[in-house]
């Protein structure tokens, strides 16, 4: 119809909604939208409760550590000070590892790096809560899983440097680790694919009457991918023994969580529609993350099926070394994050429990930095992307197939004939 001929309408015209974050560069950080109850206030349901019975947990925020560092409430886990100190060490080691490799990237020893600063408790506390034989399907920001499992820092660095000792033979983007021996699945750059694959792995474990469970991670941004939906659907249908973790670190490169759908509901709330019990947890609270992961693992191990866990945290570092967050978020937003820093909070707790001290913390920080320094020296002795040595170039034709077919042999010979 011609607009001039149209009857005057009483309703206002339609308006397209484009979500915007609460603050941009130049304005003050604003996290007033993130409301949560005091530590210890959220109930701890029986693992047998249904998604419908425990809907409230998908909107609340489970917290254990209060502002004084005291562990409070029904989610306070049964974990020794020794194991917590082990976790603190793994978080500090992860942070030192990130700091060192960030410098290495600037020195041209690798082309690319991704830090997990501020999110260390997600990977480290979850690794502590799982068995070492459980299978991990991580994103690129859970390097803390490998470090907490005691994997070789040198081996990880060799991957980042694409050097002669890189088990991925210089094929993968730096930080896209893979470790079958650590039950750590090969990281993909196509976001979300591991989430749905992990369900297949968990189904296989159940089919074989195994005891191992799977745990998968996805970022808030990638929950919009089809693979998130595939994963939740098949995990619910086949009651797969899996923990499905959404790491909500507020930012997907420059898109805030509202673009991924986080303004209209929590990411945990997605689980309810699939009939999957869902928990929302303070991702910077080591004890809460540990307790929630143990709860979800118990469900998986007792054939009660999947659990969706939203870990609320903040990506303190840029997305990657190719990113500049000052272009899209207030520069002091990280410092204003209301859930604090996971290392500081666990340290405060251990001091509160008389199991730790400022002096011990400084000494530990020095110790892990030295460990990283020594590892980096060794890894660099095997080569760096900038200076080599790299694996032999003829290896690029290997592992495309188990047996190399004629056309790849022909292409390998062609490359080898080049000077």
């Amino acid at each position, binding site marked *: 119809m011609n607009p001039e001929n149209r009857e005057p309408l009483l309703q206002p015209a339609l308006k397209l909604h484009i979500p915007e974050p609460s603050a941009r560069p130049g304005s003050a950080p604003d996290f007033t939208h993130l409301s949560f109850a005091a530590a210890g206030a959220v109930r701890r349901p029986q693992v047998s409760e249904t998604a419908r019975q425990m809907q409230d947990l998908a909107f609340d925020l489970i917290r254990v550590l209060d502002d004084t560092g005291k562990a409070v409430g029904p989610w306070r886990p049964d974990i020794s000070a020794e194991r917590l100190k082990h976790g603190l060490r793994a978080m500090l080691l992860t942070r030192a590892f990130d700091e060192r490799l960030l410098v290495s990237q600037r020195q041209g020893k690798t082309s690319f790096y991704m830090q997990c600063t501020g999110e260390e408790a997600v990977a480290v506390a979850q690794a502590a809560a799982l068995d070492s034989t459980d*299978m991990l399907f991580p994103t690129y920001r859970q390097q803390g899983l490998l470090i907490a499992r005691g994997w070789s820092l040198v081996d990880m660095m060799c991957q980042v440097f694409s050097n002669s000792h*890189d*088990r*991925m*033979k210089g*094929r*993968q983007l730096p930080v*896209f680790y*893979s*470790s*079958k021996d650590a039950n750590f*699945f*090969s990281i*993909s750059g*196509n976001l979300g*694919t591991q989430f*749905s*694959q*992990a*369900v*297949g*792995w*968990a*189904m*296989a*474990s159940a*089919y*074989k009457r195994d005891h191992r469970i*799977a745990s998968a991670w996805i970022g808030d941004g990638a929950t919009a991918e*089809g*693979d998130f*939906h*595939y*994963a939740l*659907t*098949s995990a619910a*249908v086949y009651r797969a023994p899996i923990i499905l973790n959404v790491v909500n670190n507020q930012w997907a490169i420059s898109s805030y969580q509202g673009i991924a759908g986080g303004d209209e509901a929590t990411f945990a709330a997605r689980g309810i529609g699939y009939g999957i019990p869902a928990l929302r947890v303070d991702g910077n609270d080591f004890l809460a993350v540990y307790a929630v992961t143990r709860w979800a693992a118990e469900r998986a191990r007792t054939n009660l099926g999947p659990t969706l866990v939203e870990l609320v945290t903040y990506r303190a570092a840029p997305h990657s070394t190719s990113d500049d967050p000052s272009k899209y978020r207030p520069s002091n937003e990280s410092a204003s994050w209301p859930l604090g820093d996971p290392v500081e909070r666990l340290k405060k707790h251990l001091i509160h429990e008389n199991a730790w001290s400022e002096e011990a913390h400084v000494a530990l920080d020095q110790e892990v930095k030295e460990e990283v320094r020594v590892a980096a020296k060794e890894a660099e002795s095997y080569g760096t992307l900038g200076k080599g040595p790299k694996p032999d170039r003829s290896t690029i034709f*290997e*592992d*495309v*197939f*188990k047996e190399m*077919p*004629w*056309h790849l042999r022909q292409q390998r010979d062609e490359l080898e004939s080049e000077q």
Partner: protein
Amino acid sequence: MTTMNMAQALNSAMDTMLARDPNVVIFGEDVGYFGGVFRCTADLQQKHGVDRVFDTPVAEGGILAMAVGMGVYGLRPVAEIQFADYIYPAIDQLVSEAARLRYRSGGEFSAPLTVRAPSGGGIFGGQTHSQSPEALFTHVCGLKTVIPSNPYDAKGLLISAIEDDDPVVFFEPKRLYNGPFDGHHERPVQPWAKYPASEVPEGYYSVPLGKAAIVRRGSDVTVVAYGTMVHVAVAAAEMTGIDAEVIDLRTLVPLDIDTIVASVKKTGRCVIVHEATRTSGFGAELSALIQENCFYHLESKIERVTGWDTPYPLAFEWDYFPGPDRVAKALRRTMEP
């Protein structure tokens, strides 16, 4: 030996492998209790159990993601995509994941899955139940692509695909499930029982991947075909009286280049036939390879007979389908002095 049509032969391959290897599991839309819309998994759930042959949600991306995860665990998953036309939502899991996993993990992880999907036209399926998308997959390094043309090969090739440690895409020309089809759609349907290739061993045997078959010996011209078009090519040779050598590729990747080159060097002429659309179709790759390997032996230009570069139009099925008349014309063209 038992007389089987192609659907029964495929069923027998899966039955054999389920009995032979406890790590084989089979799943897809409607494949469980019902036995599949083309009956290829009929009675397998009843025989082997619901946890070995089961239904999935209508989510092709989810089905192949599951298959990748199961493969990583150590199973040998066989996933059915109900029609090849439905495979596109699963492209990311096949191309970026299954096909690249061994490479990207330095050989640590792999996805030894088999994807079965009915492909091709001839059953009035319209554009969403008739496609032949094999060239999309032959272009992906790390995938093997297999297309059988008869019951004996179908069973032997499917067993090889399931046993293969790399991901295999296995397209089943759906027009061949019940009988061979040479493109003479006006003639009565012939059941497989009248043909020797329907004599299929009941137990285990395999037909190796990467080996073509010469289905008709000849000396005038080489016809390279696969799937339904093998039967069309043989019919066209009979129509023209031209002594064509017809090669059934059986596997597109890895390709049996030696059989093709030896034949074309002998005949000096070549016609490539496929039902899929022409531009960037697998025929283009074949043509390039034959030109590279047989240039000085060629006595005429290489001909391609293919589906048109249009979607598969329902009411114009036989205008689209590259039938024996079209192949016969190409054979005559290539024989012109």
